[in-house]
């Protein structure tokens, strides 16, 4: 209450309070983010198309690998201006992907207006200046606005009549053509149709497996199974506590959020490295004398990364109801954990662990191929020793093992669910 009559004073602008300022900024950031996401999709798409076309052209016509073939600034300018032009004159695929459409605020969307939009978007949109206002400057002055597309009772335009649809189609075709060009060679295709006989020894193992190696192979299989079991157990011991630190809903505040971010980032990096690659690193560490040890370490690291992600995602999806109920009784944090969170996650955790165990059995055979011990190592030794019948025999054993474990883990998980 200022004491002045109504209408005598103008109300304080919204942005002078902290919260109001935050809201105003957030609104502008939101609009700008939409625009730039769209722009990135369009420019990225055009860039990808250009790269692929030049790549295919260089590969087929010039016989070299090259990606741009023009000075980089021509490429950059072309992509940026092309994207903006597309967004201004038609319905770009970025707009389509985000479900927006450039529509006139009033009157017609004439070519002049669209060109004006193009120029203004260059001047104010790209530079970011226009976004200080909502709606942004280029929308205001051109009289065109990005609106959510309205569902119409008219039949939708078929994809081959829209620029976005055509663009995607061309992109797909060019991608496939260049992918085939790069990956296939005549020589390998010729061998595919003439050299099938090379593998005959493998298939012979199907009817006449080499039984003399069975006992040794079984022993290696025991090692493989133990590798998978122990790697899983040790990984569970580490990832269960870590998963609580990697759950977004439990890690709040200035201490929690950084821990969450770092942990999830590290885990997603560790997960991106295949166990085989981990195994070669660990093999150098513990030496090839202890190959199963290296193998189990590789499996362990990869399992931790995978399990933490699975566990944490489950934690993020827990039902808040029981937590509120237990907290409302005045219980402490530990009681909430014990009586509201743990009961919700036990079964899914066991289920994920079984799933990971199943994967670890497969991975344990694969890790053996780089010298990580177990049945995989025996297999690769036979292959490199050109003992294909023995290799085939070992493969049959692996199939039986993997299949049995897969079945077992699926049955157990079905029971848990």
């Amino acid at each position, binding site marked *: 209450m200022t004491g002045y009559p109504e209408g005598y004073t103008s109300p304080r602008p919204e942005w002078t309070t902290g919260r109001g300022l935050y809201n105003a900024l957030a609104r502008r950031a939101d609009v700008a983010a939409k625009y730039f996401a769209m722009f990135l999709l369009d420019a990225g798409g055009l860039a990808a198309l250009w790269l692929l076309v030049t790549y295919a052209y260089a590969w087929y016509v010039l016989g070299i*690998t090259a*990606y741009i073939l023009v000075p980089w600034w021509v490429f950059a300018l072309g992509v940026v201006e092309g994207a903006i032009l597309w967004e201004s004159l038609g319905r770009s695929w970025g707009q389509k992907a985000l479900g927006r459409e450039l529509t006139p605020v009033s009157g017609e969307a004439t070519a002049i207006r669209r060109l004006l939009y193009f120029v203004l978007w260059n001047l104010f949109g790209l530079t970011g200046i226009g976004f200080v206002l909502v709606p942004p400057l280029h929308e205001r002055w051109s009289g065109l606005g990005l609106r959510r597309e309205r569902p119409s009772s008219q039949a939708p335009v078929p994809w081959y009549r829209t620029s976005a649809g055509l663009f995607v189609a061309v992109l797909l075709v060019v*991608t*496939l053509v*260049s*992918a*085939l060009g*790069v*990956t*296939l*060679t005549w*020589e*390998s*295709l010729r*061998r*595919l149709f003439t*050299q*099938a006989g*090379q*593998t005959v020894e*493998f298939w012979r193992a199907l009817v006449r497996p080499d039984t003399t190696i069975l006992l040794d192979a079984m*022993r*290696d299989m025991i*090692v493989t199974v*133990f*590798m998978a079991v*122990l790697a899983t*157990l040790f990984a569970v011991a580490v990832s269960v506590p870590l998963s609580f630190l990697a759950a977004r809903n439990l890690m709040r505040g200035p201490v929690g959020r950084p821990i969450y971010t770092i942990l999830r980032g590290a885990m*997603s*990096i560790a997960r*991106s*490295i*295949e166990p*085989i*690659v981990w195994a*070669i*690193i660990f093999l*150098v*560490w*513990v*030496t090839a004398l*202890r190959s*199963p*040890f290296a*193998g*189990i370490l590789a499996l362990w690291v990869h399992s931790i990364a995978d399990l933490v992600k699975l566990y944490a995602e489950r934690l993020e999806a827990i039902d808040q109801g029981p937590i509120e109920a237990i907290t409302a009784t005045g219980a402490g944090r530990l009681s909430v954990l014990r009586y509201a969170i743990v009961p919700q996650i036990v079964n899914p955790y066991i289920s994920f662990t079984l799933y990971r165990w199943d994967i670890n059995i497969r991975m344990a*055979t*694969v890790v053996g*191929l*780089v010298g990580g*011990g177990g049945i995989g190592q025996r*297999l*690769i030794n036979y*292959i490199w020793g050109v003992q294909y019948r023995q290799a085939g025999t070992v*493969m049959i054993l*692996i*199939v039986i093992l*993997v*299949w049995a474990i*897969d079945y077992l883990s699926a049955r157990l998980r079905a029971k848990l669910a």
Partner: protein
Amino acid sequence: MSPTPGGAGAPRDRLKVLSRRAFSFLLDWMAWGYVAYCVMYLLNYYWYTVHVDWWGTLTLPSWGWPVVILATLELAVWCRSLGRSLGQRAIGVALRPVAGERISVGRRVLRGFLWHLSVPLAPVWIARGEEPLHDRLTQVGLRTETPDPERPGRRAILTQWGFVSLFLGALTMCVGWLIIGINLQVLIRRAPQAGRIWGEMLRPDFRYFTAPDPVFHLRALSYSILDLTVVTVFMALVATVLGGVMAFPLSFLGARNVMGFSPAGWATYGVIRGFFNVFRSIETIIWASIFAIWVGYGTVLAGILALTIHTIAALGKLYSEQVEGVSPGPLEAVWAAGGSRIQVVRHAVIPQVLPSFWAFTLYRWDINVRMATVIALVGGGGIGDMLFYYKNQGDWSKVGAVVMVIVAVVWAMDYISGRLRERIA
């Protein structure tokens, strides 16, 4: 109806109950057999009664085998009579008195002895449709366990099955530790060497990111990291497209609800599902080793074929499970309108499953990119060629660069495919 094992009821039900019992017995026996294996392994390891090489072997004198088999059998039998064994717990049954309040220890012991009499006589009491002899004479029965609200169960660790499972777990740890040869001292002792490698990898050498590396050759051509990354992603793409295109029609043949219940339908279903399961069990990298021999070591085609085969099997299984999970209503509607089987598939099944098919295919592309990065190990081509070449050269800073590129690509694929899948679902 709570099953009365071996008791009255339709003969089929009775046999089913008995086979469940047999299965749970086998489980107990196997558990004790495993304990015996582990114990003997430990004895061998520490007392050198028989020579053990590092990965472990089990050698018994000729009379040892019957002894072990019989001893474990007896252990299983007595465990099942004296308390609630692991096998009984696994199928969710427990010994309950038919008459009287509790089962006295004497009755339990008697049951153990009677078991030996009862099993040879099994044909007799099965034929007569009676409860197993040892159960009948001691007035007990194996009943499905229903929790009693009056008497809360004992803590798991204090029961026989709880104790045995803990014991099995601990034994597995010990034996596994020895079999695998886990040695933490080595880890610490050789930490400096490992540290050197890590240090070099964390100072990656990106000189040959776009420029071909002159020391690295593949069939007389030099490649840059970027070149091979593109090749890797393309490999995965081609394999996913090929695999998806082939898995699509097969998945309908491997779906119960589409194939119907005629003998031909069953046969097709069985063959297709068997194909999916077997081919899925063979890892991509093993396929790659076969195809590398076939189409040439280090050719990209070998990798593509390996990825494709595994993709067909894996996607086929996922697809057909989706097809089996469609809601039957729209199918019924198309049948009712006079549609043929093909029309039912086309207009009632496919519209329901297509979004999840796309999601699975994207997911598969993501996995294929991961696999394609290492498939070169056995001659499948891709960026792995470079990775293993540098690793063999001991050029760890270049290995670091390659690994970082792989991480970036895999991570980006993971993110993009995850976002797209979210939108589709």
